[in-house]
């Protein structure tokens, strides 16, 4: 479904991706972990064509997209949706209009159908009756839910989640993770998630990949990943797990 081959990317003199080769399994929830500043979000943005690699290839459904522009790229993007770190809701629109935005822009559905689909999605993410609020009036968790509703409303085949629980308390993080898992099971889309939430991600992901020094250091099914003996991987998931446990105790 999504395949990256030797993707390299630099910003100025700083090389972020040094040759990422990765294949995302269709219909599965794959989580990419790694230290802050490793380029996980950069990697995610390559998958949807928001960034172009300096070298390497990005394949989506058998089509190389890294050199596509304009309408050809937009056609590929129609099968995608993305939930951004800060949800990226449009400030000037209400929650309802935010969720309705892709429907009105792309499908040009009758307003009655738009209302039905938006209300349905808002209910699924637990925001029923909140459609009239503006993003500034929402809490962090509610913004993420609204962003998730907007991502789901077009029923895309692939959804990219860029650190969907950043800035949320552990309980809310857990709720968002559960919501993502439930939606994934319900709709069967291919999901790629960037996250630091160890060990929580192991319970919701089908596959886990680790980005280290601009390359994929390891990738395995979730259960197997926790048994990987590589010291870098072990250090990351052990320290991550300890921190997470501390949070729970407090």
């Amino acid at each position, binding site marked *: 479904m999504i395949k990256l081959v030797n993707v390299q990317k630099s910003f100025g003199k700083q090389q972020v991706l040094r040759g990422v080769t990765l294949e995302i399994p269709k219909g599965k929830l794959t989580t990419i972990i790694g230290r802050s500043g490793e380029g996980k979000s950069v990697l995610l*943005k390559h998958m*949807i*064509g*928001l960034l172009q690699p300096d070298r390497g290839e990005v394949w989506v459904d058998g089509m190389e997209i890294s050199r596509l522009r304009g309408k050809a790229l*937009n*056609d590929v*993007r*129609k099968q*995608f*949706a*993305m939930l*951004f*770190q*800060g949800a*990226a*809701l*449009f*400030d000037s629109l209400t929650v309802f209009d935010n969720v309705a*935005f*892709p429907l009105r*822009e*792309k499908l040009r559905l009758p307003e009655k159908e738009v209302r039905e689909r938006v209300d349905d999605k808002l209910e699924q993410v637990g925001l029923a009756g909140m459609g009239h609020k503006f993003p500034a009036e929402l809490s962090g968790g509610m913004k993420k839910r609204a962003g998730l509703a907007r991502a789901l409303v077009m029923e895309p085949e692939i959804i990219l989640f860029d650190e969907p629980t950043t800035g949320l308390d552990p309980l809310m993080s857990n709720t968002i993770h559960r919501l993502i898992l439930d939606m994934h099971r319900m709709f069967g889309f291919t999901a790629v998630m960037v996250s630091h939430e160890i060990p929580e991600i192991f319970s919701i992901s089908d596959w886990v990949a680790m980005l280290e020094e601009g390359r994929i250091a390891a990738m395995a099914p979730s259960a197997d990943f926790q048994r990987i003996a590589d010291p870098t991987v072990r250090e990351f998931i052990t320290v991550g797990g300890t921190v997470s446990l501390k949070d729970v105790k407090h």
Partner: protein
Amino acid sequence: MTAVLQRVGGVTLSMIQEMGRMLIFLLSTFGWLTRPPFRFFQMVKQLHFIGFKSTFVIVLTAAFTGMVLGLQGYYTLRRYGSEAALGSAVALSIIRELGPVLAALMVTARAGSAMTAEIGIMRITEQIDALDTMAVNPLQYLVAPKIVASVIGVPLLVALFDVIGIYGGYIVGVDLLNVNAGAYWSSIEAAVEWKDVYGGIWKSISFGLIISWICCYKGYYTTMSAEGLGTATTEAVVLSSIMILVWDYFLTSVLL
């Protein structure tokens, strides 16, 4: 010596690169303007923001500009016994130069800075990326309506500035300094030609384009920090203001 040359060369190259990027930004926006869907509602919304919401500041600036011109003009012309020409002095100054330039500078300060800040915040909070992921072109959705609204709105504000400015001169000259009202209006009628008016219109259209182009560009390519956005907004206002003054000189030399 080599280091100095390298530095000068580096600065020159980056300036040329920036100018090229600005031109591509404008041409791409024009390209998206001609493609459906046409964002009529967005354009009207921007016209309301750039045009209607700037009326108060334009009226205020125009009134005081006209009044001070009336005052200065009266005492200068009185030395030569030509107070009757006050109307033409005020009207020509405002219609040819002060109206378009001052209105454009006020729109830059009020609406141009807001354009940069709005687009810049959308860039920093990834709202522009979100538009891209939804296959909605940000140049078409965000920038094109602002450019069209600015090109329509600034000439209308300049027309308003001209009228209010001339009335400002009238209040000081006729009501306060006892210049003959008939002489005031008839000197305007005799001195102002159609080419003065359309010269002002051409200027205001080009100023509208300059403001929206520079301010949208600076917001669109802002660096991803609050400090970067502040710098972008300052640069947008300063660069737009300088470009308005420089372009005014070139256009005046062509139109005269």
